[in-house]
C-alpha cells in the first residue's frame, strides 16, 4: 500500500513539473521566440511538432524494449509496460500527423501529400493502431501479448526509415533541423528558437512520463482486478 502511495506521490510531482514546463513552453513558443524569416508565425507549430514525434519515437523504443523483455522472460509487467507505451505513443504519433497537416496547408498548400516521411509516419501509426487492435481481438492474454510483442518489435524498425527517408528519397518534407549528422543544432537554429524548442521538448518528455506512469498504474490495477476475479471464480 505504501508503495502505491509513493508511486502516486511521485506521479503528482512529475505532473506538476510537466504543467510548469508546458506553461513555460507556451510562453516561449508563442511570445518569446521570433517568427521565422520565411514562414512567419506559422513556423511556431514546430515547437510542438518536433517534441511530439521525438516523444513518439521514445515511446515506441520503450515498446521495443518491453516487448523484447516479455518474449525473453514472460513477465506481465514487461507486457504492461509495452502496452502502455504503445497507447501513449499512438496518441503522440497521431498528434504529430495532425500538427504536420495543419503546418503543411499554409506552407505547402495541401493538408496531406504522399511524401516518403509522411507516408512512413502514417504507416507507423497504422502498425501501432494494429498492435492495440490485435490485443483486443485475441482472447487468450498470453497469446495476445506474444503476438503484440512481435508486432511491437517489427513496428519499431519503421522509425530509422522515417528518420532517414528525407535523405534517401526526394521529399517535400525538409531535412531534420535538430538531429542531423552534418551540423550541431545551434549552428542551424536561432538561439531563441532553440531555447523554445528545448523547453517544449522537456515539457513533452515530462508529460509523457507522467501519462506513461498513470497508464501503467491503470494497467496494473486492471490486471489485479482480473486476477482477483479469476481467483474468486476458481
Amino acid at each position, binding site marked *: *500500500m505504501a508503495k502505491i502511495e509513493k508511486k502516486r506521490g511521485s506521479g503528482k510531482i512529475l505532473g506538476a513539473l510537466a504543467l510548469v514546463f508546458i506553461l513555460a513552453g*507556451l510562453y516561449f513558443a*508563442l511570445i518569446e521566440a521570433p517568427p521565422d524569416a520565411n514562414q*512567419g*508565425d*506559422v513556423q*511556431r*507549430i514546430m515547437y*510542438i*511538432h518536433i517534441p*511530439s514525434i521525438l516523444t513518439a519515437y521514445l515511446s515506441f523504443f520503450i515498446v521495443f524494449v518491453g516487448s523484447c523483455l516479455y518474449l525473453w522472460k514472460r513477465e506481465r509487467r514487461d507486457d504492461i509496460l509495452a502496452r502502455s507505451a504503445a497507447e501513449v505513443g499512438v*496518441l503522440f504519433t*497521431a*498528434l504529430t500527423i*495532425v*500538427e504536420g497537416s*495543419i*503546418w503543411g*496547408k*499554409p506552407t505547402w498548400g495541401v493538408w496531406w501529400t504522399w511524401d516518403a516521411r509522411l507516408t512512413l509516419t502514417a504507416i507507423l501509426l497504422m502498425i501501432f493502431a494494429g498492435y492495440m487492435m490485435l490485443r483486443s481481438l485475441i482472447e487468450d492474454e498470453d497469446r495476445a501479448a506474444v503476438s503484440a510483442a512481435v508486432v511491437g518489435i517489427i513496428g519499431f524498425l519503421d522509425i530509422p526509415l522515417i528518420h532517414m527517408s528525407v535523405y534517401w528519397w526526394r521529399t517535400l518534407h525538409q531535412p531534420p533541423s535538430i538531429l542531423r549528422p552534418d551540423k550541431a543544432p545551434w549552428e542551424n537554429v536561432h538561439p531563441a528558437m532553440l531555447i523554445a524548442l528545448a523547453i517544449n521538448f522537456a515539457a513533452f518528455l515530462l*508529460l509523457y512520463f507522467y*501519462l506513461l506512469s*498513470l*497508464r501503467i*498504474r*491503470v494497467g496494473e*490495477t*486492471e490486471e*489485479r*482486478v482480473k486476477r*482477483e*476475479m479469476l*481467483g*474468486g471464480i476458481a
Partner: protein
Amino acid sequence: MGKWGFVFLAYGIVWLAIAGYFFCLKSRMRKAEARLAQLKSTGKIKHAS
C-alpha cells in the same frame, strides 16, 4: 485562415487531445480502483496487500 489561426488550431487540438486522454486515464483508474475496493469489501480478496 490567417497564420495565427493555423498556430492556434494546432496548439488547441494538441492540448485538447492530451487533456482528453488524461481525463480518460483518470476515469479508467477510478473505475478499476472502485472495482478492486468492491471485490475487497465482498471478501473475494482474501490476501489484500
